[in-house]
């Protein structure tokens, strides 16, 4: 079936697709977004029930979650498993709402540290878009963070709680930086959305609607402005005409019926795994190695931020699962210091405790609880007494870390699934080892009576970056400096695939700022967009 041609077709209704579509709405062009997942009803989130800790239908690993809207991912050759979510809002449905910006130095790693590559843009390029996104999303934070150039927040910061207070005192004892982390979580009513009520299950969806997922931030605005969003539409491939320009897509609707949708401009917003998958699946006679892949870099340079978690057990009650997972961050070790034995750095995120079931499961699996009748007293000594430090390590772009198409694994529509190949580098491993020792140090200063290490975290591929990088040279990048594919002038990419380096912070805020920047770049060049 063939539908009327649209002006702008966006593939993917997640973080970047939503921001981009909203921004394009003011052109009054016909903007259509195809999203393979569904709208998510807040009543369906796990915290609506007592079994909230056991539900796996909102697990972040699609291979565990197995919804009809998921596709399988081969991670057998990856040190880290993928986390994603297919639905309106994409990964923001399950993210923790931790919302930091990149640092200025993150855009210049080659110039500053001789590693990675410089971005074709810099922090000042994105600053107005960080601000624009902040107004739509609503950021809770505090001005004056010494780890950043000046920035503001729309709302007061997430409360410290007992966990944050204990850790803040420890950071102060050590003379380390810490600051209330920027979070996309309402600490007061904002733009018609209510404030957080500390459900403590941010990463399985916010039943309160206080966490800023794009289904409740950008999408309502975009739809009111005339953007069309069709759900349960899985795009199989991007089609290309004889002139080498994108002509649209072929997709399956929820009944499995194939459709052809034509468009003047095609925009890919499928995340750092989904985007290269779509481009590689769009191979043709003219593009035998996949679309936009003359550089050979589609799928390559995959970056994850290898994570390490160090949990501290305290002999007094802290917050347990009360409150957002995140409250304070430490960027003491963010910038490169060669004396540490590695280049680039990491951020610490304080992580509050978990619920009763998860606390006990982790303790049982970690061998922390005696068996038999003795289980009970030891178990009680852990309830609401665990707080962790999460280390977000910067991994560098490496060609062998990549997304390809699996030769045999396919999704429910017969579309080849992605295969992930990723090895934690020596630099990342040394960085992680240092980070773990520092995390133990600060937890013990805070009063932890024991620590438990999980490094690397296997179920931690939350940040999917770098696989269709931007750049000025078509030989070393997939898109130009404003997201237009070098090879196909009406094909754009707006998600984390664009990242040249990863920084050491959660990428969603930068992804959404980039999407707004690409949209703005397109709008300022409409007269000669394909030149």
């Amino acid at each position, binding site marked *: 079936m063939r539908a009327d041609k649209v002006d702008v077709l966006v593939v993917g209704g997640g973080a970047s697709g939503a921001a981009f579509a909203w921004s394009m709405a003011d052109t009054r062009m016909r903007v259509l977004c195809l999203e393979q997942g569904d709208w998510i009803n807040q009543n369906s989130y796990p*915290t*609506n*029930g*007592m079994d909230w*800790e*056991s539900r796996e239908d909102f697990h972040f690993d699609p291979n*565990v979650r*197995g919804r009809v809207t998921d596709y399988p991912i081969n991670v057998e050759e990856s040190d880290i498993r993928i986390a994603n979510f297919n639905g309106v809002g994409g990964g923001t449905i399950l993210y923790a709402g931790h919302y930091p910006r990149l*640092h*200025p*130095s993150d855009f210049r790693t080659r*110039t*500053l540290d001789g590693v990675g590559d410089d971005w074709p843009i*810099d922090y*000042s390029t994105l600053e107005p878009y960080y601000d624009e996104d902040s107004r739509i999303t609503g950021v809770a934070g*505090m001005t004056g963070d*010494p*780890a*950043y*150039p000046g920035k503001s927040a729309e709302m007061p*910061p997430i*409360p*410290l*709680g*007992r966990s*944050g*207070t204990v850790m*803040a*005192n420890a*950071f*102060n004892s050590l*003379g380390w930086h*810490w*600051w*209330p982390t920027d979070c996309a979580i309402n600490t007061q009513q904002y733009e018609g959305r209510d404030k957080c*009520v*500390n*459900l*403590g299950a941010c990463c399985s969806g916010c*039943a*309160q609607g206080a966490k800023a997922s794009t289904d409740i931030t950008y999408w309502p605005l975009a739809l009111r402005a005339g953007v069309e969003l069709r759900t349960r539409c899985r795009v199989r491939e991007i089609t290309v005409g004889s002139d080498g320009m994108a002509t649209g897509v072929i997709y399956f609707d929820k009944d499995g019926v194939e459709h052809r949708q034509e468009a003047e401009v095609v925009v890919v917003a499928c995340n750092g795994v989904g985007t290269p998958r779509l481009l590689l699946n769009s191979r043709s006679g003219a593009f035998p190695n996949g679309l936009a892949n003359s550089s050979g870099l589609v799928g390559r340079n995959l970056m994850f931020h290898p994570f390490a978690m160090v949990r501290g057990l305290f002999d007094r009650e802290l917050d347990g*699962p*009360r409150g957002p997972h995140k409250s304070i961050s430490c*960027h003491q070790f*963010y*910038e490169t210091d060669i004396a540490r034995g590695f280049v680039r750095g990491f951020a610490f995120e304080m992580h509050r405790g978990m619920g*009763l*079931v998860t606390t*006990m*499961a982790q303790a*049982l*699996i970690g061998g922390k609880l005696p*068996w*038999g*009748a003795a*289980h*009970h*007293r030891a*178990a009680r000594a852990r*309830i609401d007494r665990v707080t962790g430090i999460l280390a977000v390590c910067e991994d560098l772009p490496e060609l062998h870390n990549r997304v390809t198409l699996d030769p045999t694994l396919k999704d429910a529509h017969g579309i080849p699934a992605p295969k992930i190949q990723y090895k934690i580098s020596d630099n990342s491993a040394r960085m992680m080892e240092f980070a773990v020792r520092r995390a133990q140090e600060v937890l013990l200063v805070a009063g932890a009576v024991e620590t438990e290490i999980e490094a690397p975290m296997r179920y931690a591929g939350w940040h999917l970056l770098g696989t269709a990088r931007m750049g000025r040279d078509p030989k070393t990048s997939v898109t130009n400096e404003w997201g237009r594919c070098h090879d196909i002038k009406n094909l754009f990419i707006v998600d984390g695939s664009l990242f040249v380096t990863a920084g050491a912070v959660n990428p969603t805020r930068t992804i959404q700022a980039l999407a707004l920047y690409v949209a703005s770049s397109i709008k300022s060049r409409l007269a000669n967009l394909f030149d």
Partner: protein
Amino acid sequence: MNAIEETSGAERLSEAEFSVIRAMAGTVIGPSLEYGLPGADEEPISSRIVESAGERYGEIIRLGIRRFIADGGPALEGAAADDPAFASRLREFMGKHPEFAQHFLRLLARAYYQDPRVIVSCGGELKAPFPGGRVLEAGDWSLLEPVRDRGPIFREVLK
């Protein structure tokens, strides 16, 4: 329908296999006179372990149990949860089969710590987190003074 019949998939656990699961569960989490709580081998907790395994984990659990029995022989059948020899053999088995251990212990934690008696005993409430929510202390932001006093720590980048 009991736990054996509930187990998904073409194969079901036998009575002997289910009794081993009960013994495993009761070995890890025994009853508590101090807190007035049952062991994890008691119903309905032990059935819940098997029921919640579902299709996703049912096969792993089934294979693990059968391997455990095959390793241990007839002596394991009818073993009690408070049998030190059984506990020793279980520890050794879990050390050698970490995937089974992780899934079994996670399912055990879910089944036990979602039992209403246990929740109440641990100070919890028998209700969903939403819509009531929880209370979080605000904290004292004057703790940031030393951080402010040290000044900027980000690296300046010249254009």
